[in-house]
Every structure is written in C-alpha cells, then in structure tokens.
C-alpha cells in the first residue's frame, strides 16, 4: 500500500464493473413449466370440448338484448356508486361529528345497512308498497301532504334497484371514507386552522384530498364489487346483464353459453375499471412519494428487459 505517504490518494482508475455468473434458479424454471403445462391443458380442453359450443357464445355476445343488459348494468353500477359515495362521505363526516346524536344516527345507519344482506334489502325495496302503499312528501305526523303517489309508481324496479344497491353501498363507503379521514395526520388540520380555514374548508381542501390516497383503492374494489353485486337485481326482474342472459336461456336452454357471455362481459368491464383505478391512484399519489410508480406499460418494458440473459 502506498497510503503511508499521509496524503489522500488521488482517485485511481475506476475498477471494472463486476461481471459475475448469476445464481441459477432451477426451481423457478420447474414452476414455470408446470404452470405452462396446466394452462395449455385447460385451453386445449376448452377449445376441443364440443359441449362448450363457442359458436353460440359468439352468436349471443353482441346480441342487442345482451348489450342492452350490459348498458343497464353499467348504469346501475354508476348511479349506485354515486349515491353510495355521496351518502358515504356525508355519513363519515356525521360519524366524526362532535354532536353525539348526529354521530349515533350515522352509526345506526351503518349498523342497519351493513348488517343485513343486500339481497334482502333489494327485495324489501321491491315490496315496500306492502307496508307503505302510498308515498308522499309533506308535513310530518299526519300533516298536509303536498306531493304523493302510489308506492308502486314511485318505487319502480329501477328505483328499488338504486335504493337497494346505493343505500347499502353508502354504509360501506362511510367506513372507507372515515378510515381515510382518520389516516390524515392531525397536524394537517391544525395547520389549516392556524391559517384561518373553517372546518369545512379544512375538510374539503386539506383532509379529503389527502384521505383520497387511502380511500381510492378500496373504492375501486367497491366499484368492481358493485358491478357484480348489481346482478342480484335480477331477483326483482330488472333486466340488467345477468337477467337479460337468463331471459334468453330460459327460452333456448343454452344456459352455460349465456352465462359465459355474461361472465366475459363482466370480466371485460372489470378489467377496464381496474385500469382506470390505477391511473386515479397515480394521480392522488402526487406529492406523497418522490417517484411515481411505473405505468403498466413501463412495467412491461422493465420486466421484458430483466428476462434478457446477462
């Protein structure tokens, strides 16, 4: 060593990059092979089993009744989620209210709507006319009524479906939003108060935008879940995607084929929703991490690069 001179050694020539022989992972190759064989077997059997009758699946895939059902399902999902999220935010804020009656009311709502099956709630709204044959709007406790109609004309199957799905969803969304609000550091609302912001401004501009990071992923799950839960509406004979398929197979008995048609459509919409969720999450992650996560396209490129032998 020449370090004994007492001087800082001048930066020497940079040593060569390390070139080592990578560790082999035979286990990974075996696992990959097993999975490929199984996948090939499943695809082969699906393609060659004549009872699948893929021709019929293809025939009904774009039939107008199925497409109409699909649109209804999308409508139901969208409206029920809007109702659920809006009411959910209100319930979450009520739940955190300093007024004990207000927070108890919210607690009770969540207890009731989360504690009974959504299928029961749908049937309940469908048959509401059995207890309230007429529904109106007016002064409570038997005062004059301004607008009224028979329950059957006010609560149409569509309204029953929205009430059943949306009110149930609100209970779940309330808990999700509440968790999001609680997750925001207390110093944030303190800083906002110190600037002179009111409670509402603090909530809308400071707390909720940060709570979004926690709220969005489970809300995406809820939306995807709602898409499928909306198929329960078939029990009140409202022709969404599943019920449209059921109506067709009840006539031609191609049960499995039409269930496949419906399932594939559910999968397509779910995929689109997951894709959208990813970008919404990315948007609300701004400021929280120095590097935004890769987009799926970037990730694909990275994975492909890593496969290349060294």
């Amino acid at each position, binding site marked *: 060593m020449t370090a004994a001179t007492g001087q800082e050694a001048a930066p020497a020539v940079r040593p060569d990059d390390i070139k080592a022989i990578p560790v082999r992972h035979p286990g990974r190759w075996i696992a990959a092979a097993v999975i490929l064989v199984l996948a090939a077997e499943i695809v082969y059997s699906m393609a060659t089993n004549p009872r699948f009758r893929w021709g019929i699946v293809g025939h009904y895939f774009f039939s107008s009744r199925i497409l109409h059902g699909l649109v209804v399902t999308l409508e139901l999902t969208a409206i029920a989620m809007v109702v659920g999220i809006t009411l959910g935010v209100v319930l979450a804020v009520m739940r955190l209210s300093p007024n004990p009656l207000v927070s108890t009311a919210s607690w009770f709502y969540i207890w009731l709507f989360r504690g009974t099956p959504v299928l029961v709630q749908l049937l309940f709204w469908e048959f509401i006319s059995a207890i309230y044959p007429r529904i109106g709007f007016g002064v409570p406790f038997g005062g004059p009524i301004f607008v009224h109609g028979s329950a059957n004309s006010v609560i149409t199957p569509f309204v029953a479906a929205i009430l059943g799905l949306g009110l149930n969803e609100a209970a779940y969304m309330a808990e999700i939003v509440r968790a999001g609000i609680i997750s925001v*550091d207390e*110093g*944030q609302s*303190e*800083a*906002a*108060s*110190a*600037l*002179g*912001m*009111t*409670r509402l*401004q603090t909530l809308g*501009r*400071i707390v909720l*935008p*940060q709570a979004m990071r926690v709220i969005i992923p489970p809300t995406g799950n809820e939306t995807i879940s709602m898409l499928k839960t909306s198929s329960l509406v078939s029990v009140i004979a409202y022709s969404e995607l599943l019920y449209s398929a059921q109506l067709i197979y009840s006539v031609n008995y191609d049960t499995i084929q039409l269930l496949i048609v419906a399932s594939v459509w559910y999968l397509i919409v779910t995929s689109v929703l997951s894709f959208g969720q990813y970008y919404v999450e990315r948007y*609300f992650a*701004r*400021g*929280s*991490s*120095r590097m935004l996560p890769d987009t799926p396209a970037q990730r694909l490129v990275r994975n492909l690069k890593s496969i290349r032998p060294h």
Partner: protein
Amino acid sequence: MSAMVTAEGVHKSFGRLEVLKGISLEVQPGEVMCILGPSGSGKSTFLRCINHLEKINSGRLWVDGELVGYRQAGDKLYELRDSEVCSKRAEIGMVFQRFNLFPHMTALENVTSGPVCVRNVPKGDARKRGRELLDRVGLADKVDSYPSQLSGGQQQRVAIARALAMQPKLMLFDEPTSALDPELVGEVLDVMRQLAGEGMTMVVVTHEIGFAREVGDALVFMDGGVVVESGPPREVLANPRHERTQAFLSKVL
C-alpha cells in the same frame, strides 16, 4: 400603547392534568419574545392558546387588545362563533415543529392556500405574492417542488412563507428548528432573524439559546406551567436568579 399579546393568569388543563398554572406576560408590538423551558413545561400549550387552538380554562388572554376566543359584554363572556375564531386566527401566523406543510400541494400552492381559500384573494395575485415570499426565504427555485422533495430546512422556510402570506400581525413559532438536522438549523434561524429585523412581532418557543440571546428582546423561562423568570435575554442568560433557571441553563449551555 397597547401590547400585542397580554396574558393574565392563564390556566389550562387537559382532563385532570393542569398544564398551565397561571401565566401572565406581555408581548409588545415589534418585540421578539423567546420562551425557554424543559419539555412538558407548557410552552407549546401556551403558544397554542394564543391562537385559540387550545381553549383556556381560566384567566384572560388578549391579542391586539381583543379577547381570544370570547367577546365580553358587561361582565358576561360570549363564546365566539367558529367563523369569528377563524378570521382572528388568520391574522396570527403559526409555524410548527413538524412543519405541517400540505403534502399534496407544491411549495407555491402551500403558500397561496391561505390567501386564496380564506381571504378570497384572486389566484393570480396570490401566486405573484407567493413567489415573492418564497424568494424572500431563499426558495425561488423550489416553487413547483412538493414538500417531500425538499429538505427539512427548506420545508420549514416554506412553512414560514405560508404563514407570512396571510400578512399576520403576530407570528408564533413552536420549536421551529427542533426537528431539523443540525446543519439545517441556521438557514431557518436566518429567515427568522431577518423577519425580526423587519419589525415582526414574534413569540418563539425554542431551545436555541444563541438565537434567544442575539435576536430576542425578551426572554421567558417556563417550568411546571408557570413563568419562573423573565427579563432581557442577556441578563437572564448571564445571571439567572432562580435555581430552576440555573439548573436548566447549565444543562443546555
């Protein structure tokens, strides 16, 4: 001439724990008052009472001649409405130990959030003034950075600019340098020193003895929820009369 802050026998309890046991002091306009004391002595709590982030239990607290949190009519006290409390808080700037910048906003958005949201200043004007303020704290090049991309010292300077954007008549600093790496403390103290030089009234809870001696006009030593000793910083620091002050200073100096 009336004092900017007047406290008379301020008491504050959290449940059964009495944190402030009768604080009386005055801060004159343009004065820099530093509050020293061991942790748990009630310094931060007192600071938070001044802008009504904490409600006091007894005593009286005035800012700029107006009672904090209440309105007096005859011998009756009326609680102020939320909106009134908010508009009074808006006139008092506060800087926190943990910065508490809004992480989802850029530095400039942090600085403009108060004026735009609370004072309804048009966005363009607020941004123009925000840039000036960030320039003043030496961060003209960090306008579009998010807090997570800034060092602690830079974040604290943005926080000071954010408080200044409301054009406060009083600035409260709650241990502004305690969460910083030692080499970043200086840049924050420099900004505070500059602010003091411009005549801002400041109440600073701090452990920076040097800053208190050099910049402070008055020094208060608190312990156990009471003011143990107060006076001109050089005097108190050089010749502490009370033994608790002596014990504290011998540990930190």
